[in-house]
């Protein structure tokens, strides 16, 4: 039995299809606009493709910045967790990723099916879909919200094993050894069971290995530092899904690529009001970390993506004097998205001695054309020059002071994706 659409009949503002003025509520066939009907079942949906036939990519993005029971959250504060604060970056990260998937994701093998978004922020703001212009309120990130969204997402993924699952989380995360939890908006609502307000990531990953979809990509942008109480009495958070062990009988394990924004036991960083360092690096990598396949198409595959984001997130974190090393837990090679053409390549140039970058200059030339000139580092605290260049052969020329002399160091290098790193070294002494 179909669920009636609540909106009045008329012109579908999504597709501009004029609907009959009388009769039953519109159907998919009438307006090809499924999102309103589907949102009645899954309020986290912010984008639905015109058709969900065949293999599709279903994306679930969770950004938890506002924690009701942490200091400043407005609720009764969970004692003993002074190090956990409100976060400004996760909502921006989740929205930025949603925008990218809606606007830029291109996978002809598994086209975009749906994008779901959950955002916890102090003042809930609807998400404006950049493709349709429609504004959608999104769930606020309580455990119930996330569980409902995860289950609906998993249900959509189960339509065919050729689907691709993409899950991304940005917010507080904690880990103790192999026990990992992602903290949700209502974390700490029950002081006696604080982790009831968390997502059990350990179990979630294991459970997803029995999900129908054969291709799964996870981005976990959260701290992985320890927290007392995690795992006490076996409580590592709420299990969001449950599949029987027989769910994949005869089909082997799915390909999983699990990307973390930081190493186990370490912290991840962001800046209020802007996407996190990892998300910025991820978005940059999604636009550039591509390789050409046998047919000449440029594809961003997960290992290259990881390599690129490792460099860029780490470099971004150095701008606030932090170290952040993303890592990968599963390394299945998954073709995530295709680029429309050859990518612009992130280029990172450093000099030795490193400290001299503040008083050094760099010129980058392609043939006789000077394409980039830098004096001092590209950003404060950064110990590199960064730029984005088209693939080609370049000459990098640095003027670097060392031992009371100015040295000109030049290197000719091919700039090739996924990322190109150059070191201009002033070597002194024998053999230099």
């Amino acid at each position, binding site marked *: 039995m179909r669920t009636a659409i609540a909106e009045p009949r008329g012109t579908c503002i999504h597709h501009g299809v004029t609907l009959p003025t009388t009769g039953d509520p519109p159907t998919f066939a009438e307006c090809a606009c499924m999102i309103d009907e589907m949102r009645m079942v899954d309020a986290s949906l912010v984008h639905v493709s015109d058709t969900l036939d065949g293999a599709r990519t279903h994306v679930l993005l969770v950004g938890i910045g506002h924690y009701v029971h942490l200091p400043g959250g407005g609720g009764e504060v969970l004692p003993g967790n002074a190090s956990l604060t409100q976060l400004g970056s996760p909502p921006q990260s989740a929205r930025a990723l949603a925008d990218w998937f809606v606007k830029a994701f291109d996978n002809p093998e598994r086209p975009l099916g749906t994008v779901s978004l959950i955002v916890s922020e102090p003042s809930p703001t609807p998400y404006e879909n950049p493709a349709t212009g429609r504004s959608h309120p999104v769930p606020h990130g309580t455990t119930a919200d996330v569980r409902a969204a995860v289950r609906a997402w998993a249900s959509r993924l189960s339509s065919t094993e050729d689907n691709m699952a993409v899950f991304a989380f940005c917010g507080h995360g904690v*880990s*103790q*050894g*192999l*026990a990992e939890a992602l903290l949700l908006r209502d974390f700490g609502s029950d002081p006696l069971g604080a982790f009831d307000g968390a997502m059990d990531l*350990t*179990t979630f*990953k*294991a*459970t997803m*290995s*029995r999900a129908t979809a054969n291709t799964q990509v996870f981005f976990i942008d959260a701290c992985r530092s*320890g927290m*007392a109480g*995690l*795992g*006490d*009495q*076996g409580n*590592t958070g709420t*299990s969001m899904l*449950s*599949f*029987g*062990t*027989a769910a*994949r*009988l*005869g089909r*082997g*394990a799915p*390909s999983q690529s699990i990307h973390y924004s930081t*190493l*186990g*036991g*370490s912290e991840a960083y962001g800046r209020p009001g802007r996407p996190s360092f990892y998300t910025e690096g991820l978005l940059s990598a999604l636009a550039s970390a591509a390789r050409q396949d046998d047919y000449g198409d440029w594809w961003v595959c997960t*290992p290259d993506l990881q390599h690129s984001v490792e460099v860029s997130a780490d470099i971004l974190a150095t701008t606030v004097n932090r170290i952040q090393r993303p*890592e*990968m*837990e*599963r*390394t*299945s090679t998954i073709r995530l998205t295709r680029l429309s053409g050859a990518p612009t390549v992130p280029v990172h140039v450093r000099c030795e001695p490193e400290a001299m970058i503040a008083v050094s200059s760099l010129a980058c030339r392609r043939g006789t054309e000077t394409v980039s000139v830098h004096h001092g580092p590209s950003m404060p605290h950064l110990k590199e020059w960064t730029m984005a260049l088209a693939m080609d052969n370049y000459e990098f020329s640095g003027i670097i002071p060392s031992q009371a002399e100015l040295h000109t160091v030049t290197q000719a290098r091919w700039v090739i994706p996924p990322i190109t790193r150059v070191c201009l070294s002033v070597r002194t002494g024998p053999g230099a």
Partner: protein
Amino acid sequence: MTALTISLDDSSWRGISARVTRVGEADGRRATRMGSRKVVVSAGRTGSTSIDVSPGEYLVEATLPTGDVVTGMCKVVGDGPVSVDIARMHAPDGTVAKTRIPRQGARDFEFPSAGGMLSTSFLGLDAHVAGMEPEVFTTPVQPRLDRSAPPDPLALAKHLPRVVRPFEPGAPDGRLRFPMASRVLAGADGTVGYEMDGQGASGAPGPVWMEFAKGTQVRKVMLPLPWLPEGETPKRLSERSRVRVDVAEDGKPRVSVDDARFGAMIGYLTTRRIAEARTALEAIADDVAVGPFPADGGLPDAAPHAYLAACYVGILEQDVRTHTWGRLAERLHRACPTSVDAMVVTARYLLVTARDTDDLTRARSLFLQASEGPPPTFTIGVQMLLDGLSAFADEDETMAARRTEFLCVARSVDTGQPFTVLSSAPSPD
């Protein structure tokens, strides 16, 4: 007084302890012990320890890392220095089994009271301490097992203490009680020697634990001995495996591997460097197909750990030869049914490639069996075991309860280490 120099020209170990006992005639009886001194002897051509002794006959008893004790006599007659090389006290065929000094009785575990760097080579059979004043502390070894009885995996596994206990909230004093322990003597010159109680680890299959403390941080390092087949000794296996575990000043173990393929596996298990691991998987798969496996189904001679690591990596990464790794895992499991690692990796293979419920039933049984023993030697094994228990927990109360129990171990694991390292306190960083 005359200098008696005791040396150990053997690079197999870094140092050992020795007891120098003056023997002589007293009351007309020969070989009466007339007081002894314990010394620590560092190994290598430049490593030696000198003590001043008065003329007489001396019995030098060296406790080898294997738990064996070798003895030698020397005579100090005048002012000229006298040297004894413990390595030459070995039997000509290279074996060291001569005399055993069994000392029964339980002894409480004691933590070292000082900080500093403690490094231990594979199996913890020799060690190196820097910046430590001489002191005695203990480290656990496994109890001796009765090798005359047929091997029972569970019985063997249960000989090891359940490591969850010291880390469970509310443990009486947070300390383990070990049925047997070995004493370690730390020398000011940066060397330690071991004095093994009982028969040491030489007869015991399964993982060997060592425990180190720095401040309030206590780390248990599972030294990579995933199996010990009948007739094998830890020392021989350690030499074949080409693994070395050092515990550095920050208390964290550092693993080095003198085998390219195994090194590639370790690289994957620590930093997920997949490219080298894939190349190594290919080479190991060739070995499995045509290589050096003994006809009796035992383990290959060189770097046997690499084969187990390949199973872990190949099955985790769904390598194209997944079934090769699955068959190898089963083979390892058959070759050494006591190996928890072999149980876990076999169970994982059965779970992810299950074609029918029989496969799932067997996987469940192996996961359950593995959870009753000590944790797997490899960190990835701990993760696979946790995942396996979690997979069945939704539909099986026994497995759910076991998962909860095992979580105590899993949450103490240092995920950055290839071999299982448990910590009783959060990492300082």
